[in-house]
């Protein structure tokens, strides 16, 4: 694999005003960073295998990533993907749930099945000497779930409890409303069900969801860490070759358009307002994605970013503000999220908009942008320097249909972003007047503040 040199600019912090102060030593010459080598092969049934030997700690991570998830839920089927995953952890045709748990524990781990909008991941992390056995166990859980009907009502009840707890927190309330406004009736817009919906699920719904959506063709098995490659290849081939080819990868993507407006969800007497403010942007398959992502790090996506410097380090309005480019297959949103003290809800919205507007109208300095590029390049090295991180990167590429050059050229492409481009990206994608704003807070106190904010927008 191609070697990547990190051209980390040596930033000289401006300390010139205090002549007696020392400047930090710049450090040495950047070391070469090489992406870990991977071995890829395919089974006859369409299943893809990617193995990445990495590091020296005697552990191995195995993740089977199936390209299905909440996106494949039909109308009125919210969380059916999650219930299916829950039930897959209740035993296989040859092992009870407890036997699966004990088998994994005897390897030093457990099997987890996580469900996202586009991917369902069955994974485990065990001591290296048990890597091949873990493959067998994950294959069993994925391919021969017993789907014991007797466990369904308990699992639904657990999900109802979880739903109730989630919906008592302001952040999930805000996120739910925001996604609903942006994505409408597409499954990306329905992230929490009702208790009635959960109660409606039968074992047949679960079986059907499984057979409609799981199979070898949609699955990539990743192995990363310390393991014997030949032994692992043999174990995976043996464990997964008999699996049905199953359905082809298929995602029905939404047409997301910006829906400007403010929505207040009342949380009486709340000491803070939970703000989410954003709009649809391009997903990772678009050429603008990397420059947009660099723009995000500069604007609000890092500790030293402009929005964080302003509303946290200057004003003290909030503890953990952050902006994100939140991606799904065929869709993405940019948003700033912050929990701010109630009496500065309006001023916080104003400062966030001010920073966006400033970046739209003034090209950032070269030094500031170079710092952000260095940061992004450093994060890239970290993202590719742990078994979990490596699997995350590779499955990201796979989901968005990107080839290896996305990774090998990534650092070069980050460094190619110009200050003018950052402003262009902000103008093109981050128009605060088109943003959806959701605020969960004490309505009687914040309503007037938000009105004042809207009136003040014209003065920017």
């Amino acid at each position: 694999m191609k070697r990547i040199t990190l051209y980390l600019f040596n930033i000289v912090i401006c300390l010139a005003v205090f002549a007696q102060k020392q400047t930090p030593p710049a450090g040495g010459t950047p070391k070469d960073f090489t992406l870990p080598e991977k071995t890829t092969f395919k089974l006859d049934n369409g299943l893809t295998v990617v193995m990445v030997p990495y590091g020296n700690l005697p552990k191995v991570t195995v993740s089977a990533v199936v390209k299905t998830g909440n996106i494949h839920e039909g109308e009125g089927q919210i969380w059916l993907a999650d219930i299916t995953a829950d039930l897959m952890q209740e035993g296989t045709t040859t092992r009870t749930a407890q036997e699966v748990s004990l088998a994994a524990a005897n390897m030093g781990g457990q099997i987890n099945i996580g469900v996202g909008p586009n991917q369902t991941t069955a994974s485990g992390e065990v001591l290296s000497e048990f890597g091949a056995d873990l493959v067998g166990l994950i294959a069993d859980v994925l391919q021969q779930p017993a789907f014991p009907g007797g466990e369904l009502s308990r699992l639904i009840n657990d999900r109802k409890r979880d739903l109730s707890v989630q919906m008592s927190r302001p952040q999930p309330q805000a996120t739910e409303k925001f996604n609903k406004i942006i994505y409408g009736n597409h499954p990306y817009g329905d992230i929490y069900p009702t208790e009635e919906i959960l109660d409606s699920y039968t074992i047949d719904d679960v079986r059907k969801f499984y057979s409609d959506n799981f199979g070898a063709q949609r699955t990539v098995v990743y192995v990363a860490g310390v393991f014997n490659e030949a032994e692992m290849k043999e174990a995976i081939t043996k464990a997964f070759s008999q699996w049905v080819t199953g359905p082809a990868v298929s995602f029905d993507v939404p047409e997301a358009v910006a829906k400007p407006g403010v929505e207040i969800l009342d949380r009486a007497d709340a000491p803070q307002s939970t703000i989410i403010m954003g709009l649809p942007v391009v997903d990772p398959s678009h050429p603008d994605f990397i420059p947009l992502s660099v723009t995000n790090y500069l604007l609000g996506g890092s500790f030293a970013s402009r929005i964080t410097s302003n509303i946290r380090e200057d004003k003290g309005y909030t503890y953990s503000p952050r902006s994100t480019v939140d991606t799904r297959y065929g869709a993405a949103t940019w948003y700033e999220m912050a929990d701010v003290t109630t009496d500065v809800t309006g001023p916080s919205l104003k400062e966030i908009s001010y920073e966006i507007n400033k970046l739209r109208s003034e090209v950032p300095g070269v030094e500031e942008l170079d710092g952000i590029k260095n940061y992004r390049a450093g994060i890239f090295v970290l993202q590719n320097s742990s078994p979990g991180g490596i699997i995350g990167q590779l499955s990201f590429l796979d989901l968005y249909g990107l080839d290896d050059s996305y990774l090998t050229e990534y650092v070069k492409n980050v460094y190619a972003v110009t200050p003018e481009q950052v402003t262009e990206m902000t103008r093109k994608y981050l128009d605060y007047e088109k943003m959806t704003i959701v605020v969960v807070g004490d309505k009687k106190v914040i309503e007037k503040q938000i009105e004042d904010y809207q009136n003040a927008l014209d003065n920017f």
Partner: protein
Amino acid sequence: MNKICKWTGVVLVSLIFGCNPQKAESPQDYSYQVPVDYYKLNNGLKVVFSQDKTAPTVVVAVYYNIGFRIEPQDRTGFAHLFEHMMFQGSENLGKMEFVKLVQQNGGVLNGSTRFDFTNYFEILPAHKLQTALWAEADRMSGLAITDDNLINQQGVVKNEVKVNVLNQPYGGFPWLDMPQYANENWYNAHNFYGDLEDLDAATLEDVKSFFDTFYAPNNAVLVVVGDFEKDETRQWIQEYFGDLPSAELPPVADISEPKQTAEKVFTKPDKLATRPALAFAYHMPERNTPEYYAMGLIDQLLLQGDDALLNQRFVKEKGYTGSVDGGINLLGNMFNYNGPMLWMGSLIHDAEVPSDSITAVLNQAIDEFTSKEVTQADLDRALIKMRSDLYSNLGGFFGFGRADLLASFALFDDDPGRINLLEGEFRKITPDLLKRTAEEYLVPENRTILILEPTTEEN
């Protein structure tokens, strides 16, 4: 299934030789030793190196021997507020310059305040090690902050308390609450996050006095993990830290906890929660004793993972909850503290199940555990899980997990090499000691129950 059970005993022995029992003809070494170099500067600063060239990155961590337990009595939350001040300006770096220095050089950074230490760390591209060492020495040499900085961070910290506790259902439950109910000694039993009034009362004078008292090289350890050369790193450390003066440290506070003799039960109302919850906590055996290691294994068998007994009983069999969470030291792990500690678990359940039923299942499970012999298979499974966790910890957060253990063992035991002795200590535990430890410590007299009662209108 049987196959795996049969192996476990063999595997543990084979670690020494590093061979997979099934593939004896192709032995592969799967054991791991953490490289450790340890020395001290003349001013008392402890220094630990652990070289690992897997990735071109380096972790720099400075741990100060000052945790929230021993913060001033009229200034709850001060140790944590002070941690924020360490990012607000030093001799040569103004406000935000430390953060920018690390970030613009391609790194990440953070700090945290725990029971017995406050830490500051950076993870950077390897060639920026010198820069990070200089910056940490700079803020160890002194702070230069203003009233505005302090007021700003009081605002930030109050917002931190609001977002994590005051505006959250189950906020602070049980991690912040339980020590306040289960412990008797103020040092262990006060609000570590701080009352908002106490946070507001802090002055620049408090900041200065706290710094002068605790932030000295002889009260700290510096750990470097990752891809670096030892000789030049030693030279940089000598250059940047060598001249910092040591300080006279205050007498060690008495943080001991009186022995509990009767069960304690408390109820906490929560106006934001929609479902009741229950937490239980038992005082731990003293750190580094055989019983302490035994409790580590008991935790693996009772609480950690979906195979654990309490998860089997509460989740799978009774359906009372989706998971039972907890462990030893909820703000870290069983290694990075130095004083009285709790083994704690908690679960959120439905209103239809009274708390008495929860306690009854807990009692039954613990009775079941203590009344029968611990099998070798159970002990083996606990050891494998513990070893697996330990390795995850060593690799966790790009080597920061390793730095954390090395710092804790240097700070508390003056022996970072203990990191390589842990497996051996756990392996010494016999089924008999496991059983005796459970019988002695997992009794109601040693326990506090905290019931969280929703007081929302819908309830």
